[in-house]
């Protein structure tokens, strides 16, 4: 029997308009499933397996399936499908028009169909019901390499004519039934980190990602999607110069007093850490940046509910993984450290979610899915 690709633990989660917690991920057999809970994670309904044909699903670490709810009973599920060549992929989507009772067959979201990188997608509906999908795309790297005279695919891949990848996006105004053109949001993103999304006060969607700034600095960039195009702004200034893949994207959430709360991993002056900072409404850094109170913190995420801010992360001590949170009741002015859970099992990155009942942390371990409230 041919070896089966390992079923990753990474899950996506969202709250439906009816207030149910939904998750999407791969089961132990590597099948894509959705499941919902009326009592945030205390009990779950039967998992619903989704028919995705022969598609493979990236569900490991920074790659994870996602789910989002739109108006008019619309539900979309997305994932990256790795293709036959190394470093290639397509963003695939399934859609529902009956609140998740049934789903379409999967389809490809972007118009570009080259066998190149289209990976690490993120998606969200804005207040007007427009579905925004954002992803990492290497079409410009291929183009630049060809222009530079790289005749072979190998030469193109090794070409230094174009730093990193690009961020592309598109919009759907009918819940994923049709999509507008692929639009470039930014040249020169990092190639292997998730893109964070957060709602804007105006009802739009903001994005934050790891970028490659001149000359080769892998700090973060911020942009609001849609509307009049504005150039991305630099959101972090660690000054991390390296030629390597961090596999470690940022987190972003709206602040009660305007602007955003952001978390990211980086190296500043030789000190690697997950850091927290405030961003203005345009994404520029505001105030002091703080390291999380855990030198081994990794894959932090952030969520807000009113003035409450919660940052959760995992931390391995050589024996087990700790799930910890830094919680603020005053929009980030002060934080307290909370120990949430621990596990000796293999585990996913923590996911933060704002629900009508407050902030929840979702953490999947090999045997179970923890849904933990963050108490004020």
């Amino acid at each position, binding site marked *: 029997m*041919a070896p*089966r690709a390992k079923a990753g633990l990474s899950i996506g989660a969202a709250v439906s308009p009816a207030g149910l917690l939904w998750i999407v991920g791969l089961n132990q057999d590597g099948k894509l499933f959705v499941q919902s809970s009326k009592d945030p994670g205390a009990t779950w309904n039967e998992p619903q397996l989704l028919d995705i044909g022969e598609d493979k699903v990236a569900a490991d670490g920074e*790659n994870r399936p996602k789910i989002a709810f739109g108006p008019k009973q619309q539900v979309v599920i997305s994932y990256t499908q790795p293709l036959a060549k190394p*470093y290639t992929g397509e963003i695939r989507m399934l859609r529902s028009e009956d609140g998740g009772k049934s789903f379409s067959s999967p389809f490809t979201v972007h118009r570009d169909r080259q066998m190149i990188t289209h990976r690490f997608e993120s998606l969200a509906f804005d207040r007007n019901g427009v579905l925004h999908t954002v992803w990492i795309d290497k079409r410009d790297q291929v183009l630049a390499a060809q222009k530079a005279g790289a005749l072979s695919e190998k030469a193109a*891949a090794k070409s230094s004519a174009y730093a990193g990848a690009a961020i592309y996006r598109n919009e759907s105004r009918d819940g994923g039934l049709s999509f507008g053109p692929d639009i470039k949001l930014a040249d020169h993103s990092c190639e*292997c980190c998730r893109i964070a999304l957060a709602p804007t006060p105006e009802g739009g969607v903001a994005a934050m990602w790891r970028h490659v700034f001149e000359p080769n600095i892998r700090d973060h960039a911020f942009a609001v999607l849609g509307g009049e195009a504005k150039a991305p702004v630099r959101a972090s200034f660690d000054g991390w110069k*390296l030629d390597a*893949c961090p*596999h470690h994207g940022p987190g972003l959430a709206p602040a009660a007093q305007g602007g955003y709360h952001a978390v990211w991993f980086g190296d500043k002056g030789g000190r690697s850490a997950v850091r927290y900072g405030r961003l203005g409404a345009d994404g520029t850094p505001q105030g002091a940046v703080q390291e999380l109170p855990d030198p081994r913190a990794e894959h932090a995420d952030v969520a807000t509910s009113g003035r409450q801010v919660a940052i959760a992360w995992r931390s391995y001590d050589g024996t087990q993984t700790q799930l910890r949170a830094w919680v603020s009741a005053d929009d980030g002015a002060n934080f307290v450290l909370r120990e949430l859970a621990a596990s000796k099992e293999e585990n996913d990155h923590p996911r933060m979610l704002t629900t009508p009942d407050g902030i929840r942390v979702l953490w999947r371990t090999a045997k179970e899915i923890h849904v933990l409230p963050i108490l004020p």
Partner: protein
Amino acid sequence: MYSPFSPERRLRLLFLIGGLFASVATAFAAPTTVLPFGMETWKELGQSSSRPLVVVFSTTDCGHCPAVIDSLAQEMRKSPAKARLTVVVMDGAGQEKLLRADRHYRHADFLYAFDGDGMALRFKVNPEWRGLTPYVALIPVTGAPRFHTGAPPPDVVRGFLRH
């Protein structure tokens, strides 16, 4: 009488073409076997080698890894140290067929696919490793390994291969 197609010349030509094919095949041959890399393999690697070992931890989406593997292989070819190049693909379990066909790994003497808890392995290899790839371990026959995120400086690699 001289003939360009005499049996002797044809035989020489065949040997020449065969030799060329063999050289090209060797230069581009990926390892034919993808070995499983478990939690104990790291310890075994360090203990079992009678030759210096260069280990590159990679992932299937690490865009920087192929160039680093190539440059290390190049330095190693120039050196008389007969060091071995090992590549561990951290998310490679279940994708062995793809890895075997992937030309990026053709210079590896040994190709492994890791299956297990990546965070626990990272801690075991070096608690300072924060998951970035490529992550390179230079393991001497005796003594402690040296670790580098990304490409180790060429002089460090040359120094390692000299000892």
